[in-house]
């Protein structure tokens, strides 16, 4: 089975990020680029599936990023993926969800696939819109928010999260599945994995290779960023040390009444 995993490179989740007021861009200095944490669950799910199926199953990482993203992609390879496809082209800059999904779909079709696995969202843009759009461009079912799945023959049987439980869903391959963080605990790359990843192939693809039928990047974007603004400040409030539970409850009740919340 040919398993593909889409990944995104994002600024480090735990770094306290800031916007440069002059350039209106994220200050990248001192902020490391990492694999989108949500995508690590998809990589882990792919590796577990490959291990279970055995035989000639493969796991390929697909991403769109500048050439400098190669080293981050190697982390996914160090976890155990077989190879990677990197869509890298100056024409990709400024792509929105539409353009990104369009280019990734072309790269995925060109590579060939039975199952595409995605994380649910990225930690920078947090749109959560990529898996659905990608499934649409691939012309396959897009089964999202999956917390557990297995593949029986050519059928995926999955649990799809709902607000108060889950749906049991089945779908035939080829398909796209996005997984939530409930699905597994991503592995850390082993030393052997890290060494082995250096020899694995990261195949570059340009937009010319993909022969898209429409422009992407800034020219093809369906949305445009007009402006950035600072959020309304949220200052330090009251800090009250209380002697006992009764005082604690009273302080909170009075505060909520003051705010007209009770």
């Amino acid at each position, binding site marked *: 089975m040919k398993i593909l995993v889409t990944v995104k490179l994002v600024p480090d*989740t*735990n770094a306290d990020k800031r*916007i440069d007021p002059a350039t209106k861009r994220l200050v990248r200095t001192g902020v490391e680029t990492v694999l989108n*944490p949500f995508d690590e669950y998809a990589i882990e799910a792919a590796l577990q599936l490959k291990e279970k199926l055995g035989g000639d199953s493969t796991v390929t990482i697909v991403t769109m990023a500048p050439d400098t993203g190669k080293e981050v992609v190697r982390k996914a390879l160090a976890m155990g993926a077989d190879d990677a496809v990197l869509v890298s082209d100056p024409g990709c800059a400024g792509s*929105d*969800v*539409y353009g990104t*999904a369009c280019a990734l779909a072309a790269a995925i079709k060109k590579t060939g696939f039975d199952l595409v696995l995605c994380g649910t969202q990225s930690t*920078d843009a*947090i*749109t959560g*819109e*990529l898996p*659905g*759009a990608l499934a*649409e461009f691939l012309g396959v*079912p897009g*089964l*999202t928010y999956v917390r557990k799945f297995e593949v029986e023959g050519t059928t995926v049987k999955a649990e*799809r*999260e*709902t*607000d*108060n*439980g889950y*749906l*049991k*869903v*089945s*779908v035939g391959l080829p*398909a796209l599945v996005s997984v*939530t*963080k*409930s699905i597994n605990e991503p592995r850390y790359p082993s030393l052997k994995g890290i060494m082995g990843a250096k020899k694995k192939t990261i195949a570059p693809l340009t937009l010319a290779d993909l022969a898209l039928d429409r422009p992407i990047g800034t020219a093809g*974007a*369906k*949305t*445009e960023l*007009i*402006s950035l*603004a*600072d*959020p309304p400040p949220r*200052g*330090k*409030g*009251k*800090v*009250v040390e*209380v002697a*006992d*539970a009764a*005082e*604690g*409850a009273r302080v*909170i009740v009075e*505060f*909520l009444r003051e*705010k007209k919340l*009770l």
Partner: protein
Amino acid sequence: MREVIVFIEHTGEKPRRVALENATKAREIAGALGGGVHAVVLGKGAAAVAEQLKAYPIDKIHLAEDPEVDAFVIDPQVDYLEAVAKAAGPSLILVPYTMIGRDVGSRLAARLGAGVTADVVDLAASDGRMNCISPKLGGLTITTCTFKSEYGVAAIRPNSFKAVPGSGAGEVVQLAKPPGKTYAMKVEGEVVEAAGELGVEESSVVVSGGRGLGGPEPFKTILKDLADALGGAVGASRAAVDAGWIPHSHQVGQTGKTISPQLYIAVGISGAIQHKVGMRTSGTIVAINKDGSVPIGEFADLLVVGDAFQIVPELTKAIKSIAATHA
């Protein structure tokens, strides 16, 4: 774009509140664009929901109580919405920023060649442009985006607008089944783990617990009781979810949900950046922690320093007695 189409997500015969919030806002936007407000309600319970929608300022309520909508995931809903959108012409389509809404919205946008904006907390039509306002990078910056496409899809964060009844034509239109479609993602069954609870995304009050609670029990007892007393939902920090104390669907923060309830009560949560980005836009933030120097003290409106295990039940009791006096 001229028309405004509102996708009505519902649970059985009950519309989700975010759907009514969006329908209310749609009236204002449609007024500015010079078009009408359409609602689309699909699947089991749709007819009953349509009746309730008549109390809101909607011109046309498009309805299909088609069993396939519930038998298959997402795709039938996208097909119906596509049909309504194409018949209405260039339009702004509002979906809730929920699991279902994101899916429906993203597939629809790709199909219509439309731009999609996500986690939108405000909308404004100005100079022929449709502006969508969304916090990005965990609320670090507030972006204003517009569409460069004929159609636009905006996924609206629950609790962004007020749901206000109002008058509209309220004409109910039965939708024809989109022809020639077959569906693949078959629903084999549904398992309800927490019946009757409103999710953390939509509740106007969220009571969240963190590492300080020490185990799964307090989430089911003291936090649940307080949330119930306030008519709210139980949330959690990453630490609590990673420890397996509560399912991921309750997680608030960067790798969980981003929410804006009117009131957020953080119990035993230190307020690391990871958590902060998921709840910093809440109306009022109250924290209860045994440590007065936790980071949440820097942005909570009130930090009560004390023993949460004692304070929370006492607070629940006080709120219940207030509710009883008012009843």
